[in-house]
């Protein structure tokens, strides 16, 4: 047993324990999968459905993770409610994610408006968006979201994902320019990132299960 030397350390340890199962990484990886697969589906499903098809997929993954949390994680870890300070930080993370998602949507809408007005020729649109408008802002948005989440949630691995997301659009563009990779290299770079997130998340989850076997409790206590 390791006794924490401070109340803050105890609170941090308790909070990190609730994130240590790796399942949120699986969810984030499934979200990233859209950036990898949507460009490949555009030809067969069209612009809208190639992205919209991921909404039910995310919903299924989210519900599956909630079920695993309730049936597998919770009986092994127990339940905890955090104080107002920690709840405020979690709300801040949610706010940041919502703001960044809104910013991404606004960027997308701006490009759509420019397309429709003919300011950007359709054939140059995606390239211009990604090269002059999208690459850096997209990368910075990803980096900001994960770094802020890392700070507010005391979760260091989020920084690593933030850096990967920052590099992804730039690397994709570089691959497209130098190696002629299709779809701005997105299927490759986001495929690697989402596989890494899902893979690391699953490895973390199974290691967590091994390290936290079910407790032998009297009276079937949960």
């Amino acid at each position: 047993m390791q006794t924490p030397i401070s109340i803050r350390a105890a609170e941090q340890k308790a909070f990190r324990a609730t994130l240590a199962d790796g399942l949120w990484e699986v969810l984030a990886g499934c979200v990233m999968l859209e950036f990898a697969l949507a460009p490949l589906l555009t030809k067969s499903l069209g612009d809208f459905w190639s992205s919209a098809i991921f909404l039910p997929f995310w919903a299924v993954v989210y519900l599956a993770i909630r079920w695993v949390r309730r049936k597998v994680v919770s009986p092994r870890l127990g339940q905890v409610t955090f104080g107002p300070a920690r709840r405020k930080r979690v709300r801040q993370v949610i706010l940041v994610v919502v703001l960044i998602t809104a910013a991404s949507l606004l960027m997308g809408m701006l490009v759509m408006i420019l397309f429709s007005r003919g300011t950007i020729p359709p054939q140059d649109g995606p390239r211009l968006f990604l090269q002059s408008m999208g690459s850096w802002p997209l990368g910075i948005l990803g980096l900001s979201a994960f770094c802020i989440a890392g700070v507010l949630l005391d979760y260091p691995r989020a920084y690593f994902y933030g850096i990967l997301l920052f590099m992804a659009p730039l690397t994709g563009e570089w691959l497209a320019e130098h190696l002629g990779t299709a779809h701005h290299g997105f299927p490759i770079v986001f495929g690697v990132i989402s596989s890494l997130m899902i893979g690391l998340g699953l490895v973390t989850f199974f290691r967590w299960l091994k390290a936290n076997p079910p407790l032998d409790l009297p009276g079937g206590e949960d």
Partner: protein
Amino acid sequence: MPNPKSNPDLNLKTRPEANLENHPLTSLDPLIHAPARLTILTYLYAVESSDYVFLMRMTGFTWGNLATHLGKLEEAGYITVEKRFNGKKPQTLLRMSEAGRNAFRAYKKAMQQVLDDLPD
């Protein structure tokens, strides 16, 4: 070994500062001061509420050990224990009472003073 009688500095009876009545050490709550209970209270102070399983995971204590210490803390009014059902399974929810929080703060203050008074 030096003889306290021949050396007045070592004779506790003759040293005025040896009177422990007002020493911060005496104000340390013995119920909180025990390492196991201090660990339990640190976690319960840090969170709003927790169940038995979470506390067992955090502290590394066994069910029996935890039950013994929690019983003493409940008896002193430092924690509240709420029994309820989570679906069909019984669940015990633990929460630090206001009295417990005040006692823990007082303990922290007294301990800080004791540590501050220690020479470097």
